[in-house]
C-alpha cells in the first residue's frame, strides 16, 4: 500500500460532525467554564446534543466511539483535535480520569474486576495521584508514605495536580513503603472516596488555563486501607499487564500525541478565528501589509500541519504494534510550544483587542500553555528523544 496521510472517509465524516458540533455546542460555554472554574452546570445535557457517539465516561460503555480502519490511536487524534477545536472543556467532560486505567494495567484479575469493570460500566470518575508539592518529573521522590499496620497500610502525605481528585470514585495513590529503596519502594494504592483520613485539600487549583478541569490537592492523614488495595509498581514505570490497547501506558505514554492533537485543535481554532476577523478588515490594510499578514497566516498553518504529521506518525506506529516513545515525545514537544506562539501571534495581529475576553484567543492562549507541561513536560520529552538518539549512537 502506498503512503497516505489522508484519513478514511468514515473517519473524516465522523470528526467533521464532531468538530461542527463542538463549535456549535461546546464553544458557546467556553467562557463560562473558564470563569466558574468548572464545567457548565448542565454539561451532561450539552453532551447529549452530540449527533455522534463521544465515548462519554458517564454513559458506562453505552456511548462507544466507533472503530475506524485508520486504527484506534490514529482515530483518537482526529477525535481530540475535533473536540478541542470547539473548546477543551468538552474533552475534559467526556473523559473520566485515568485511575481505573492504572488498575487495568497493574491490577490482578480480581482487582480489575472489582475496580475497573464497575467504573467503565457504571460511568464514574477516577483519579491518579502521583505528583507532590516538591516533585513532578522526578517520580522517584514520592514522599507520601505507606506504613504497615497489621494486615493493611496507613498513608500519610500530600498530592497535588490530581485531575478529578475531588470527585473521583477512588484515587490511585503512589506512596513509598521504604524511602531507602527509591523508586523500587513505591507502590500504588487504591483509595476509595470517603476513606477516613482521605481529605480534599483543594477541589481545584487556581490555574492560569484549563480552569474547568478539576485539579485537586489531596491530603492523606493516617489514611488506612486494606492490603487488597495495593497495586504493583516498579522501576518508576508502570508495567502494563498486557501490551494491548488501553492500560496505563495508554493513559500516560500513548496519550502524549493526543496532547499534541489538543494543542492543534485549539490553535487551529485561534488561527481560523483570526483569519476571519482580519479578512473582514482587509480594506484597511495597505497591499504590502496585507501580504505580510497573509504570509504570517500561511506560515502558522504550515506549523500546524507539521504538528499533525508528527502526532500521526507516533500513533500510526502504535497502531501498527510498534510503539515508539521517541516518536510520541517528538509530537508532544513539537506541537504545544509552537501552538503557544501561534496563538500569541494571532493576538498580536489583531492588536490589543485580540487579548480581550470578548474573544476566546486569550483563553486559548492560557489553556494551551499546560500542553507543554503536563503528562511529561517539554524538557522531559527532549530527554526521551535525546536518549533514543544517543542510545543509537553509543550502541
Amino acid at each position, binding site marked *: 500500500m502506498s503512503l497516505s496521510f489522508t484519513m478514511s472517509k468514515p473517519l473524516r465524516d465522523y470528526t467533521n460532525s464532531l468538530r461542527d458540533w463542538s463549535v456549535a455546542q461546546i464553544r458557546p460555554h467556553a467562557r463560562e467554564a473558564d470563569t466558574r472554574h468548572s464545567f457548565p452546570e448542565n454539561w451532561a445535557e450539552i453532551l447529549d446534543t452530540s449527533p455522534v457517539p463521544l465515548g462519554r465516561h458517564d454513559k458506562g460503555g453505552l456511548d462507544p466511539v466507533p472503530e475506524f480502519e485508520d486504527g484506534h490511536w490514529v482515530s483518537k487524534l482526529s477525535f481530540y483535535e475535533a473536540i478541542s477545536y470547539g473548546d477543551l472543556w468538552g474533552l475534559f467532560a467526556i473523559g473520566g480520569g485515568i485511575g481505573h486505567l492504572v488498575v487495568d494495567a497493574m491490577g490482578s484479575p480480581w482487582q480489575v474486576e472489582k475496580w475497573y469493570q464497575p467504573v467503565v460500566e457504571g460511568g464514574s470518575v477516577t483519579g491518579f495521584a502521583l505528583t507532590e508539592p516538591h516533585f*513532578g518529573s522526578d517520580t522517584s521522590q514520592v514522599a507520601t508514605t505507606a506504613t504497615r499496620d497489621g494486615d493493611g497500610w496507613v498513608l500519610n502525605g500530600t498530592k497535588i495536580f490530581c485531575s478529578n481528585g475531588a470527585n473521583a470514585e477512588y484515587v490511585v495513590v503512589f506512596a513509598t513503603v521504604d524511602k531507602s529503596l527509591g523508586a523500587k519502594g513505591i507502590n500504588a494504592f487504591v483509595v476509595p472516596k470517603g476513606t477516613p483520613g482521605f481529605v480534599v485539600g483543594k477541589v481545584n487549583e487556581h490555574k*492560569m488555563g484549563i480552569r474547568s478541569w478539576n485539579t485537586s490537592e489531596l491530603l492523606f492523614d493516617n489514611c488506612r486501607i486494606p492490603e487488597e488495595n495495593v497495586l504493583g509498581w516498579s522501576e518508576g514505570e508502570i508495567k502494563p499487564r498486557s501490551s494491548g490497547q488501553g492500560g496505563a501506558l495508554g493513559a500516560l505514554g500513548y496519550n502524549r500525541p493526543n496532547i499534541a492533537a489538543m494543542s492543534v485543535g485549539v490553535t487551529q481554532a485561534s488561527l481560523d478565528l483570526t483569519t476571519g476577523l482580519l479578512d473582514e478588515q482587509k480594506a484597511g490594510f495597505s497591499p504590502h501589509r496585507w501580504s505580510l499578514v497573509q504570509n504570517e497566516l500561511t506560515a502558522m498553518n504550515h506549523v500546524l500541519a507539521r504538528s499533525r504529521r508528527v502526532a500521526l506518525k507516533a500513533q500510526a506506529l502504535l497502531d501498527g504494534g510498534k510503539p515508539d516513545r521517541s516518536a510520541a515525545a517528538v509530537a508532544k514537544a513539537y506541537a504545544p510550544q509552537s501552538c503557544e506562539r501561534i496563538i*500569541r501571534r494571532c493576538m498580536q495581529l489583531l*492588536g490589543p483587542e485580540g487579548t480581550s475576553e470578548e474573544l476566546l484567543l486569550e483563553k486559548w492562549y492560557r489553556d494551551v500553555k499546560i500542553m507543554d507541561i503536563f503528562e511529561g513536560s517539554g524538557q522531559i520529552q527532549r530527554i526521551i528523544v535525546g536518549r533514543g538518539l544517543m542510545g543509537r549512537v553509543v550502541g
Partner: protein
Amino acid sequence: MVNLEPAPEQLEVAELARELGVEVLAPAAREAEAARAVPENVWKTLFATGLTVPVPEELGGSGIGDTATLMIALENLAYGDPGITLAAFSSGAAALLLARHGGSDHAALVRSLITEPGTRAAVALYEPQGRGASEFATTIEVTGDEVRVRGRKVAVAFGAEADPLIVVGVEQSAGGVRAVLVPRTAPGLTVTPHGGSLALEAMAPATVAFDTAVPVSNLLDASGLLNTIGRIRLAVAAIAVGTGQRAVDYAAQYATERVAFGRPIASFQGVSFPLAEAQMRMAESRLEIAESAARLDDDAAEDVSRAVGYAGEVAAEATRAAVQTLGGHGFIAEHPVELWYRSAAALSTLDFDPVCSSFQAAL
C-alpha cells in the same frame, strides 16, 4: 564617542524604581488586576516619585527629562509589576505630550497632571492590526477654527474616566501626524471598555471611537511630535524587558532550590539554557532600547517599531521559559510567573507590527 556607562543619576533612578517596583508594585499586582485599577495608595506613592510623569523641570515638572533614563525607570518599575507601571505611565505620557507640544492654553492642565494624583489623562494612540503612526486610520483635519477627529483607538488607558484624551492621528491634507486634545465631554465619543483582558488590567483599557469636533486651539504643536510619540511607544519595550527579567530571575532562583534527580534543577542544561538564552535576548533588547532612546534624545529620526517588536517577543519567550522552569507550579496563581507570562503576551500585542517581525515556529 561611545559611552555605555549609565550616569550616576541613572543608577539612582534604577535603584529607586527597582525598590518601588519590588516593594510597592509587586505586592499590589494581583489586587490591581482584580480591581482593574491601581490601588490608591500605590498610585500616590508612585506619583510622588515622578518616575512615571516624565515632565522635566524646564517644562514645569520635576520628572525625568530624557528618554534613556525614563526607559531605565520604567523597566525597573515593571520588574515589580508591568500592569501598574503601564497604567501609571499612560497618564504620564499624556502629560509629556501636553508639556512638549501644548500651548499656553494647556499649562494649567499640565500643572494638574503633574501635581494632582487624582487626575487621569490618556493618550489614544494604538490602532488595531499593528498600524504604525504612518498608517493610522484616525484622521485629524482642521477646517476653519475647528478640528474634526474621526477614528478608532484601542487600549486607551482608563478609557471610562481619563480626561482629557490626547488623540494621535493623521492629517491627510498635510500628510503628517497630529495630536489633539479631546475632552471627555466632547460629543461623538464612544467608549467600549475591554471588559476583561488577558492581562494589563490595572490600566482599565477601552476602545474609543471618535467622531467629533473640537476647537482648533486643542491641536498640539506638530513639530517633533513623532519623536515624543516614539518615546511613548518605546516605553512598552522597556516595560516588557522588565517583565521578562523579573520572570527569569524568579525562575533562576526557583531552579537553584528545586531538586530533581538528585540535584538542583539549575544544574541541568535543559533548564538553565532556556533561561540563559532569555537573558541573552534581554541583554540585546535592553541595548536596542537604550540606543533608540539615545537617538530620540538627540532628536534623530528613529522608528522604534523594531525595538518594540523585538522586546515584546523577547519578554514573551522569557516569561515562557520561566513558566516552563516551574512546570505545573508556573501554571497556578500561587506563583506570580503566570501573571508575568500573561502580561508579557499582552504587552506584545499593544504595538505589534508585522513589518518588523515574521513568524517563526518554536522548533
